[in-house]
């Protein structure tokens, strides 16, 4: 196994810090994408992710994703304790490869969508969502 420089840094960093700090989910985002794509190259055309620029509350953030011709779309939230959000698998009667849902975001962070296309290729996009914290409680 050949480690890239980046992986080596992460491995060392992770070992040193894991017991002390809750790690940001960056490493596991890479893992989740790799598991989804099998390490294939990932393009950026043909996928659209709509998210609010500012979410008034991170508990319920509306998102909409569309990737015409996709077989499945995975959504990740890079700054959550666990980055996995949802995976949509589209069947033969899906009229479009698009869906909307409402998600939880622990703070300001990137929301990532990766689509697997019918030809086996992959595309990815990401949007930053600012989550306002410190408003009036209830």
């Amino acid at each position: 196994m050949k480690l890239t420089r980046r992986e080596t840094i992460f491995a060392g960093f992770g070992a040193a810090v894991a017991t002390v700090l809750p790690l940001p989910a960056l490493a596991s985002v890479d893992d989740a994408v790799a598991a989804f794509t099998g390490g294939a190259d990932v393009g950026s055309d043909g996928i659209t992710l709509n998210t609010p620029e500012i979410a008034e509350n991170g508990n319920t953030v509306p998102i909409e994703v569309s990737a015409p011709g996709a077989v499945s779309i995975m959504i990740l939230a890079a700054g959550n304790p666990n980055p996995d959000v949802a995976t949509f698998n589209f069947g033969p009667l899906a009229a479009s490869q698009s869906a909307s849902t409402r998600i939880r975001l622990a703070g300001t962070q990137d929301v990532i969508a990766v689509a697997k296309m019918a030809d086996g290729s992959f595309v990815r996009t990401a949007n930053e969502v600012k989550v306002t914290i410190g408003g009036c409680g209830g």
Partner: protein
Amino acid sequence: MKNIKALSVTASIMGLLAAPAVAGPDSDSLVINGELEMVTETAAPEHLDGAVGDTIYSGWRFRTDETQALQLDDFDNPAMLTVDKAIDYFNTVDGSEGKSCASCHEGPEEFAGLTASLPRVEDGKLVVLEDIINGHRAEVMGAEPWKWSGQDMQGMVALIGLQSRGMPVDVKIDGDAAPFWEQGKEMYYTRYGQLELSCANCHEQNYGNMIRADHLSQGQTNGFPVYRLKQAQLISKHNRFRGCIRDTRAETFAEGSDEFRALELYVASRGNGLSIETPAVRQ
């Protein structure tokens, strides 16, 4: 009251109120299910004597487009899940007398207009919808009272409120209601807590400005109970009052206290003329 208002600290309240990134309400109009037009701004009631300017606005006008959208269609409105449960409950027998709401009442539609007129005085006491519901549970059904802000109670408050949706808030403030209204008004302008904030400091003098990350509304109650995204459930008026007073770092009054009943009447009267939006969606 005038002298208290004169103590306004508009520039900054301990640095909490930042310069407005977004000033005032937006100009969107609220049409529910593509057909029910709501009055989200109207002439301020006379008793306000210009305290908020000429116009009162629904809290909906101060929310982001994404939050506003959740209230445009009853299917998208998550509050309706709890309202659906309340419809089931309406027809479910509960308590020692073997009765459901439906044993005495044709259906929730019977209560059209009720929420628009509450709180009101009955037999010398100021009564809100939670009192009426628990009163009927105890006296007619022989059932245990519901917790004030529980989802059973607030689901029923929302179901009954929904029957008045689109009607203007129209609470009575004179006659036998006057002393309660005066008590509520006194509370509205009283500074509470270590931060020494009154309701008016935020919701009268600074609506439209940001308090930290929140876009301050006029604090209208015409959409309550509201589905609040933060708690992902229905929030009662008294829960909201308690949250505000707690945020001033004060000991708060209890939900269901006479103080909050009086405040509920006064705050409702500041919204006389706005459409009932129950159940609204807020952040």
